[in-house]
């Protein structure tokens, strides 16, 4: 082998070795690299006990309630399977909205999270307000259609048989 080829093999082997080592380290850390737990993991008792941790998910539609002091907020974080109620006293970020992503940090007592910090998590979609409006209307129309179908369904199915 020429010296040049030797150096090439040396670099290739070194790179594969480092990639393998980093890969194994990340594999060992896989749970710890995640930023937050999902509400389902909280119900499965996969979260640290008596320590502050983060829960991430969506703010459940219609769950946001403000108390009279104007600063305390109650809402529910859901992963559409399980949900956790959250109490938070403080200022919410701009992107905090019902149906949108959220990450809350705090401790869970009796199934309720007392949050010290609430962060909004943005999605990857960028569109003008008109387009967002049209999407919302289309979705509403779709759910209306879906709601209309079950009432017809029993009539349709016997005919098909």
């Amino acid at each position: 082998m020429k010296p040049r080829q030797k150096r090439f093999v040396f670099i290739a082997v070194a790179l594969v070795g480092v990639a393998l080592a980093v890969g194994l380290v990340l594999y060992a850390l896989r749970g710890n690299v995640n930023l937050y737990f999902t509400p389902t993991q909280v119900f499965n008792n996969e979260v640290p006990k008596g320590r502050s941790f983060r829960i991430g998910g969506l703010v459940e539609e219609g769950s946001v309630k403000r108390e009279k002091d104007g600063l305390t907020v109650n809402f529910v974080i859901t992963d559409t399977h399980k949900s956790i109620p959250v109490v938070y006293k403080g200022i919410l970020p701009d992107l905090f909205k019902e149906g949108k992503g959220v990450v809350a940090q705090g401790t869970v007592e009796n199934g309720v999270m007392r949050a010290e910090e609430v962060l909004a998590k943005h999605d990857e979609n960028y569109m003008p307000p008109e387009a967002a409006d049209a999407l919302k209307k289309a979705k509403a129309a779709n759910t209306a259609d879906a709601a209309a179908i079950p009432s017809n369904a029993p009539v349709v199915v016997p005919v098909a048989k």
Partner: protein
Amino acid sequence: MAINWFKYSAPTTFYGLAGKMIPWFAFSAAILFAVGLYIGFFIAPMDAQQGEFYRIIFIHVPASMMSMFLYMVMAGYAALGLIFNTRLSAMMASAIAPTGALFTVVSLWTGALWGKPMWGTWWMWDARMTSELILLFLYLGFIALHASIDEPRRADRAAALLAIVGSVNVPIIYFSVKWWNTLHQGATIKFSGTSMHIAMQQAMFTMLAACWLYAIAVALARVRSIILERERNTVWIAELPEVKQ
């Protein structure tokens, strides 16, 4: 007609070629920056959720992409220099590093400025942000290691090895939002399509092209200085018109 590429792998010939190319890249970068900013500020509509705040992506996204691309280009040149023992490749790697570090700082900084009003925090130790910060340290480590060794050829080899090993970090940055749950949102520009309004896309890709041209122009200007510095004792440098006077 076949172009003899090897002719330009010698610093002697590349010095002149780079000098001729710089104005073209710099000029087109300036035009594309102007066009991109115009589309970004006046044509692209406002975002449904973020209002006007989202416009930071026109600099944040190109800067983040460039910080990763440039690292791979730098590591590629470093590997070429190590394998083929070509002087120019190592010089190119050193010329790219400061621009890459600059783009990484811009990416982290604009992200923090956006994160405060939108997420509610300047910084979060999630996988995407932490790995991007490590990228900045790799760039700074490359520059520092190269500067700490007096003999240029030895410095080239040591820094090249660091650059190659560090390239493992780039795929981690890119896939971090997929492999783990993070505060940073997932990719908007995917190979399967882009979930973004067309005028916003135009502004972003124009800015990306402008950043590319800027990076090339600056790297070429810097490699010319490096050539001058390292070959200062040679005859061809002494005979350059700009040196003679």
